[in-house]
């Protein structure tokens, strides 16, 4: 193992060295040009956004105070100053939990959507962010959990489809915490999704499911949030934790994902995984897990079982 690691390091270093001579000593003019064009586009978009905000503010003022701007000595609202270089991220929500702040920001940069959650005090702030071209894809829920030792809560955030009405965290041990769904603010072109955030206090183990629920109370999607505590999580293709496998060699090498289109090449892995004493299996997959074939079953029986993993999957097409 150590030899292989060393070999991998050497190969990577050699290949990276090859690329050392490919970049010029000074920034090429085409890169500089792209930076300029990008800045110009951003300034233009921010100008448009600022103008729209100003018009909106003016219209609101006129609606609420129809005579305000006609009274002598009353100045019309001043439009917000045009930012020299706009910040692509806008604050969606912010708050305080036991004296420490959290902040959830989102924004669009060209075709890319960026999200960021930060927690902590002004002296020490920690965060996690991501940028995606299509953050939701054909799903109803994409969630990420931020669990910092310095912050007394786990902050779960992400994106949900417009069909999702509410998001809750459902503790395995019982009880729920309601999250909040927000529209992404400040977008000229609203995205086809909303964002959400749940702050889950760490008073008890944070183990359970994030549920995305529609207006009729149907659960459209779920995402497992579990602390692994040195154990290896067995996740499904959607990143949901199905169960845990003790993290000891050689089990690591037998890792496999349920629900994937298995092939005969992986049949030995699947047979092997089926012998694991999985714990903390999702409630929805308990039956599936209990129904795994006995060792003497055929390869086809194992393949069918593996592919019949019962939850998750893409959002059904509306067509």
């Amino acid at each position: 193992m150590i030899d292989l690691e060393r070999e991998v390091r050497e190969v990577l270093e050699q290949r990276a060295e090859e690329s050392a001579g490919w970049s010029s000593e000074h920034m090429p003019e085409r890169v500089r040009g792209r930076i300029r064009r990008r800045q110009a586009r951003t300034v233009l978009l921010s100008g448009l956004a600022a103008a729209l905000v100003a018009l909106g503010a003016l219209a609101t003022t006129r609606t609420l105070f129809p005579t305000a701007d006609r009274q002598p000595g009353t100045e019309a609202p001043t439009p917000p100053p045009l930012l020299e270089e706009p910040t692509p991220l806008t604050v969606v929500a912010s708050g305080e939990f036991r004296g420490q702040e959290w902040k959830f920001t989102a924004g669009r940069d060209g075709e890319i959507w960026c999200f960021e959650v930060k927690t902590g005090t002004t002296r020490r702030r920690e965060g996690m962010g991501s940028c995606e071209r299509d953050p939701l894809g054909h799903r109803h829920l994409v969630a990420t959990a931020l669990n910092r030792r310095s912050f007394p809560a786990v902050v779960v955030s992400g994106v949900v489809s417009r069909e999702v009405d509410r998001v809750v965290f459902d503790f395995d041990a019982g009880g729920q915490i309601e999250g909040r769904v927000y529209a992404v603010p400040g977008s000229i072109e609203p995205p086809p999704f909303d964002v959400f955030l749940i702050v889950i206090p760490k008073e008890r183990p944070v183990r359970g499911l994030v549920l995305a629920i529609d207006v009729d109370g149907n659960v459209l999607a779920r995402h497992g949030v579990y602390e692994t505590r040195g154990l290896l999580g067995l996740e499904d293709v959607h990143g949901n934790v199905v169960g845990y496998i003790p993290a000891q060699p050689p089990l690591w090498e037998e890792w496999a994902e349920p629900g994937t289109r298995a092939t005969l090449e992986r049949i030995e892995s699947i047979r092997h995984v089926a012998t694991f004493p999985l714990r903390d299996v999702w409630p929805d997959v308990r039956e599936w897990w209990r129904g795994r074939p006995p060792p003497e079953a055929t390869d086809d029986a194992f393949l069918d079982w593996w592919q019949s993993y019962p939850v998750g999957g893409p959002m059904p097409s509306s067509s």
Partner: protein
Amino acid sequence: MMGVGVRTVARSEERRARLDELYVRHFPGAMGLAYLLTGDRHLAEDLAQEAFVRLSGRFRHLRDPQAFGAYLRKTVVNLHLSGLRRLRVERAYLERHRADVVEMQSDMPDVPESRDLWGVLQSLPARQRAAVVLRYYEDLSERETAAILRCSVAAIKSLVARSMATLRNELRGEDE
């Protein structure tokens, strides 16, 4: 008024010089990382440039400008993985039409495939390759790698372990 104009030009020059400095200091590293992730010089160049251009626009808003290199590395990896999602759609389309493709290629001679370590590394799934590159080339900890790939530390352990198992199996197959 003149003073303002001079100050603006000076600021612009200063900004330009800072960007140049950042480029010289960080671009080769980003290029190396992009090459290890893509295995293709031109793709790597596009990827590293795109990451640099995007990040340079946000430079003034970075909480810690000293960490430009780390931000650039993260942007390269994220862009690479999001770009691959598009490729996966293209690949799914190709799979649907695989029968035609196979028929079209059936007369072509076999191309000998190099199965050296670099070749096998390139054949790893994108997230596995990214995890290996970040761990063994960038020397990031499991926690730091998990932060960049936005997954748990356990997932990183699993990605790296699966990658190493694949490498070992493939190389063993080559020896036999």
